[in-house]
């Protein structure tokens, strides 16, 4: 198991430099656009996410780009806010994961053996069951709500990062430049902060950026099972899932949020690959 996750979470060398370059452009661009949209939703969106702006079920038109939903909300505006929502959510999950993972992983990787043993047993235990299943169970027990879903996911997301960090720490620890730093007689704390931790940045960034898309999808999945955000929260997964009943009569209600999800995920993946290519090149 030890290197399992580490190895598993290494799809980044995948991108050959050339394709990498091609993708970096597109990927990062989309990524940037999405982020801008997410941040500027209130400015960009023509209407508020919860403010009905006309009759329900209006097909896409010049006034309402993506049409209106079953309540008469402007789907376009809701998708913008939803993008922000989903974005923030997945970011939160990933950041929490990274933070906790970094802490635990670093302590395990750089601390004394016995501590490493304990921490990794715990991590292994967490990894022994697929995160999303636990998330489903937890969310099911807690009852549907975006917060619950996020809690559920964050609860199970960090072990991956703990593994990555720990592995990286162990690897870096053996690297000549760390040895050299230690040998040169500078303080242990300084070695860790200046010579070890920065070395993990690229790996973590890559893992995280590749994860964002996955989290968005996971959230969407939970929403589909009625465990995600409860209406009328403008969360893409929830919007798509709850709009499914209009799939045949008012396709724009579920399709546009779903497309937004797809775009985010795709961009996140591609951008992740791109970052990876950079990181890979840097190594």
């Amino acid at each position, binding site marked *: 198991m030890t290197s399992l996750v580490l190895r598993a979470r290494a799809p980044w060398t995948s991108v050959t430099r050339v394709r990498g370059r091609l993708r970096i452009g597109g990927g990062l661009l989309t990524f940037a656009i999405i982020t801008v949209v997410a941040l500027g939703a209130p400015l960009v969106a023509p209407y508020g996410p*919860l403010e*009905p702006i006309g009759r*329900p*079920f209006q097909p896409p038109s010049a006034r309402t780009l993506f049409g209106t939903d*079953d*309540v*008469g909300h402007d789907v376009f505006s809701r998708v913008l806010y939803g993008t922000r929502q989903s974005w923030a959510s997945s970011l939160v999950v990933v950041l929490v994961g990274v933070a906790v993972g970094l802490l635990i992983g670093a302590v395990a990787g750089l601390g004394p053996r016995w501590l490493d043993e304990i921490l990794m047993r715990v991590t292994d235990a967490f990894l022994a069951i697929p995160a999303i299943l636990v998330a489903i169970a937890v969310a099911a027990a807690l*009852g*549907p709500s975006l917060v619950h879903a996020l809690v559920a996911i964050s609860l199970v997301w960090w072990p991956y990062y703990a593994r990555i960090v720990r592995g990286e720490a162990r690897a870096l620890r053996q690297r000549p430049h760390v040895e050299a730093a230690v040998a040169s007689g500078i303080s242990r704390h300084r070695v860790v902060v200046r010579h070890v931790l920065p070395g993990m940045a690229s790996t973590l960034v890559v893992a995280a950026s590749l994860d964002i898309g996955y989290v968005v999808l996971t959230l969407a999945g939970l929403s589909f099972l*009625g465990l995600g955000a*409860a*209406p*009328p929260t403008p969360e893409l997964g929830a919007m798509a899932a*709850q709009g*499914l*009943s*209009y*799939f*045949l*009569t*008012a396709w724009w209600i579920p399709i546009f949020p779903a497309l937004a999800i797809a775009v985010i995920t795709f961009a996140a993946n591609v951008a992740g690959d791109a970052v990876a290519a950079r990181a890979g090149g840097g190594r």
Partner: protein
Amino acid sequence: TGGSPASSSGSGTTTLRLALSADPSPLDPDTYYEAEGLQITTATYQGLLTYEPSSPKITGLLATSWSVSPDGKTYRFVLRSGVKFNDGTPFDAAAMKASFERRTALKGGPSYMLAAVASTEAPDATTFVVHLKQPVVPFLDYLASPYGPVAVNPTAVAAHATGGDHGAGWLATHSGGTGPYVLSDVVKTTKYELTANPNYWGTKPYYSTVDFSVIPDFSSQSLELRGGQLDMVLHGLDTRDYTSLAANPVLQVQNFPTLFKVQVWVNPASRVFGAIPVRQALRDSLDTKTLTSDVYGNRASASTQFYPVGMLPDGAVADTWSPSPDALKTAVEADKGRDVVVGYYGDNSLKQLANTLQVSLQQAGLSATVRSYNPSQVFALPTTPAQRPDLLLAAMNPDAVHIDTWMSVYQEAQAPVNFLGCSAPAGDALATRAAATADPQQSLDLYEQAARAYQSSLCWINIADLNDTIAASSKLTGWQHLLPWIFTVDLATLRPKG
């Protein structure tokens, strides 16, 4: 697969293909107590009484005639002769007695209907007598209710009883009733098959088999109906879906009146709506006609009576008002900007209603948010006051047409499904007296008074009377439906056009 609706798949058998959106809970009529799958129990079991189609009028089923003692404590039924259970066992008073005892013994949800039964007798094969501890006004309605006591084949029960379960395990996936159909094959989460009861006492149904396949996703159901894989979709589509289906030449959409009332439940503990005047204003601000037609199309009609159709004489407790949109605004002047939660329990239509309500509250100056409740949450509300919203939109239906089944379940202070714990003590008192009054006319009067008390409490604001909406192949005809039914039609009377 595929094929035309109501396809005759050879060998003279004619098949009707329906869908369930989920596995129903065990189909033992004495514990079964939900909507999904009611179509199956109603087609396989029969009680002593029933209602006339789409009417509150009680009529005999396994009983041909009945009489009630003046003190309202003794009921005497003359049973239909020549009735057989689906395995050929003759049906008689003894069987009925056994069935009553079984229900009481199983202590299932619906057993409360027989809670007051002191004893039963079967003096002869066609006479069945029930003695009550105290008069139970809605007793006859209980007997006619789709969840009421039915004839359950005692020999089958005896044959399959294990560990004192009174055959419940077996009956979960088989049927031992006198109904036109037999539950002949169950593959859980896949299919439920009904076949015509060979020993049925009534007119043989046209369709010799009825297949239910479990299709959780309603879009898929709709697609299969359009594609001819299904002959009927019992529920779950949304208004626009039905409109487009109705427009489809090979399909039809049937609407049947039910006891369902779409209501706004008011939380008496609400900072805003605790005050009667505000509730009044809220009610007046609602334009139920427009709301109903917007949200439900012809799946419902605006509510005009305070209770579901047939519970009280028409117009006895009328419940209409002329909408004055800005009534609320003035009423909640004091509470400007206060947070209120509009909860809803149910399908997208209720969500729509909730949102529309939210909008008008917003316009009235409150900051309203919508929250959805799933079954497990909403039915926990009576016991978890903290979770209660300020207003709750829900559509409920009683077990039988009698008004008591509404008051005692939804309205009395201690009623099991009084979601927000709002009630009117005066109403409660009257209702209790009415329930204990043997003389029908007197008790009816009392109920009317109780009804007015409840109405004036403004704990409930009626919006619409829901229909049971069924989409089906246009080839089908012979529709029949009972008021308390839901997701259900009379399969026995269905037949192809022409």
